[in-house]
């Protein structure tokens, strides 16, 4: 008989749960990009430590998934802040507006470099152009007569005689990853656009252009290594001739084992990423739902912490985690916008 009482109590528990939860939430809820995730984590931890308030819940859903959750509506069931490794899209602004989320604030927190790296055991001084990277990793290359051929390059030296005569092996992120989107956009598209005939194709058929310039090869040299970047680091160590593609923070943390490959003669480091000379870098944002500011306890203090000099500044703890900080005047602008709740689009 007790079993039935147990069942009943479990069911009551579930009901009480849903009822009690809808009433209030005392934890800040942050979703969004996996690239912004470590920075939001750091701020959340610092905030909980400093204020003694309940620790915010930070969940990594990807940039797109984050906007979906963030734009779901206003109220305690929906996230307060979302991180993004690109600016919000028109369609997402509309999705937000359709669900009543009209007042949001955008904050650019800094830049994230994508690095292409090899093991320190590799002795070549690597310096690639974006065009060479495209020729190594694209699925199809233009044949010069208006058509396309499957990528014939097997060795780096097939692309340019000055490159080493070792097989092309590159470990990179899968298509579900924001890092992959950024890599395709920042490297592959740039490397593709100057190839013979591509400019004409872009004018004639932009969809075809995007398809050709975005497709990574599937015949072996490019290996999708899953979302786990630590795994790529291990593989690079065991095979010194392979290259890996991941966020700059992984290169920075593993600088004893890996070295960055120069892209267009520029080495990846904090300075080159910040001044924009390193071509493979993207901006990082977070978006705040202003309707939650006075409803969710601690929101104001959390935002103050996020844009504080101790976090975002050049010596801040986010820079220690691999974020490339903004220039001083730009940072002051962001701080002002976030603290005043500047409405996005106004």
């Amino acid at each position, binding site marked *: 008989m007790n079993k039935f009482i147990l069942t009943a109590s479990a069911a009551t528990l*579930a009901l009480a749960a849903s009822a009690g939860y*809808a009433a209030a939430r005392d934890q800040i809820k942050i979703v969004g990009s996996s690239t912004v995730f470590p920075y939001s*984590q750091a701020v959340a931890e610092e905030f909980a*430590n400093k204020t003694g308030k309940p620790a915010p819940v930070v*969940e990594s859903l990807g940039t797109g998934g984050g906007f979906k959750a963030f734009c779901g509506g206003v109220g305690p069931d929906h996230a307060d802040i979302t991180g993004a490794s690109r600016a919000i899209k028109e369609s997402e602004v509309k999705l937000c507006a359709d669900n009543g989320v009209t007042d949001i604030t955008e904050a650019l927190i800094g830049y994230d470099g994508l690095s292409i790296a090899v093991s320190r055991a590799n002795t070549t001084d690597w310096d690639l152009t974006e065009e060479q990277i495209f020729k190594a990793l694209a699925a199809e290359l233009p044949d010069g007569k208006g058509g396309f051929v499957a990528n014939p390059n097997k060795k780096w030296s097939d692309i340019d005689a000055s490159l080493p005569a070792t097989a092309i092996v590159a470990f990179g992120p899968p298509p579900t990853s924001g890092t992959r989107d950024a890599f395709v956009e920042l490297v592959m598209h740039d490397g593709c656009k100057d190839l013979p005939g591509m400019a004409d194709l872009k004018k004639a058929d932009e969809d075809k252009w995007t398809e050709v310039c975005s497709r990574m090869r599937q015949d072996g040299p490019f290996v999708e290594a899953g979302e786990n970047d*630590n795994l790529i680091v291990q593989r690079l160590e065991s095979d010194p001739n392979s290259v890996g593609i991941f966020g700059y923070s992984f290169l920075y*943390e593993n*600088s004893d084992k890996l070295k960055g490959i120069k892209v267009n003669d520029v080495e990846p480091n904090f300075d080159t990423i910040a001044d924009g000379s390193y071509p493979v870098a993207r901006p990082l944002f977070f978006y705040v739902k202003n309707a939650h500011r006075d409803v969710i306890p601690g929101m104001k203090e959390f935002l103050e912490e996020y844009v504080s000099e101790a976090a975002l500044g050049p010596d801040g703890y986010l820079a220690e985690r691999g974020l490339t900080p903004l220039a001083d005047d730009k940072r002051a602008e962001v701080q002002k916008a976030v603290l005043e709740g500047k409405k996005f689009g106004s």
Partner: protein
Amino acid sequence: MTAVTFPAVVINWGSDEMAARRKRRYAADRRLQIYGMIAIAFALGFLAILIGTLTFTGYRAFTQSVVTFELDLSKAEIDRSDVMGADWRGIVRGALREKVPELPRSSERAYFAMFTSSAQFLVRDQVIRNPALLDGVARFSVPLSDPLDQLAKGQVDRDTPESQRRVTDRQIEFYEQLSAAGAISKPFNWGLFFNSDSRFPELAGLAGAISGSFWALLVCFLISFPIGIAAAIYLEEFAPKNRFTDLIEININNLAAVPSVVFGLLGLAVFLGWFGLPRSVPLVGGMVLALMTLPTIIIVTRASLTSVPSSIREAALGIGASKTEAIFHHILPLSMPTIMTGTIIGLAQALGETAPLLLIGMNAFITSPPAGVLEASTALPTQIYIWADSPERGFVARTSAAILVLLGFLILMNAIAIFLRQRFERRW
């Protein structure tokens, strides 16, 4: 009509031919045994490799280098009514500075980066828990930061050029100085069990994940155990045998084989979507895991109900017990040890389940352990998933250590199941 006659076959068992045949058959026996032993050796070998590599990469996470310093809080001007608001950063830095006399200002940044950046909070929380510390000199220990911890554990090659490692030459000098003064020690890392998750490997622990897993399993047990037993009793004792109950039976067996990620999607759609339950909480995690464990419990319970000899059932009914009385007074108590064993094994399986928990958001980053089933938390397998994906070097060892902890819990649960079976099970 001729009678069928069989030719008399005389077998000479001692002949060479027979001896050869015997030999062949014995050899086949021995080969079968050897194949079996090879199979077991393979299985054990891979298990040994798994545990071996985990231990090899993970054992370092079970110690943590700390720096110990003395602090006279009676001299620090702390307002007793506002201990939280005191200048802890200044106080702790002052105490650490004394460790290295004549610390030049230019090296301060490098020096303080050697210790965990949360040092002031650790000291503050310790004082708040024990206000008596305010009255005199007390000793405090704070962890070294991850790069220095790696150095202390011999994981940093000092011969690599300075620009290629996270520890600068100056920091190594400071480390040697502190080390020579006996300020650095490597005690057992209790933080691994009593801290919650953190961005900093030196502070990250499993407390949040362990309590999250505990709450989720509790919910899972409270739901799946009574429902599973009720369903099994009905199917075994009351249900008529017809096509409909056959269909139910087939479906239950099928459900036991459905990939767990499917239950995760179901939980996402039903529990979060329709019921509007919050994300990332152990309650929902437990409910999803309960769906997964239910078929196992039903199958085990039915099997153990059938194994109770019918003589017991008939004797009870024969002296006038109702069906309910026969079940609850006799049959169920006799089959309970087997049911418990099956349930514990089902729960152990649920403990290691990752995919459904990822879908309902139990892989969030939370720096405090959940106080109940309604507070967001992680679980052990999802914590492993988060740590495996973190760039800091210290998390590599911690990931392996967390896997070892999870394996420890699994072994414990299975051992309890075996103990229950050996101790209480009755054979007929």
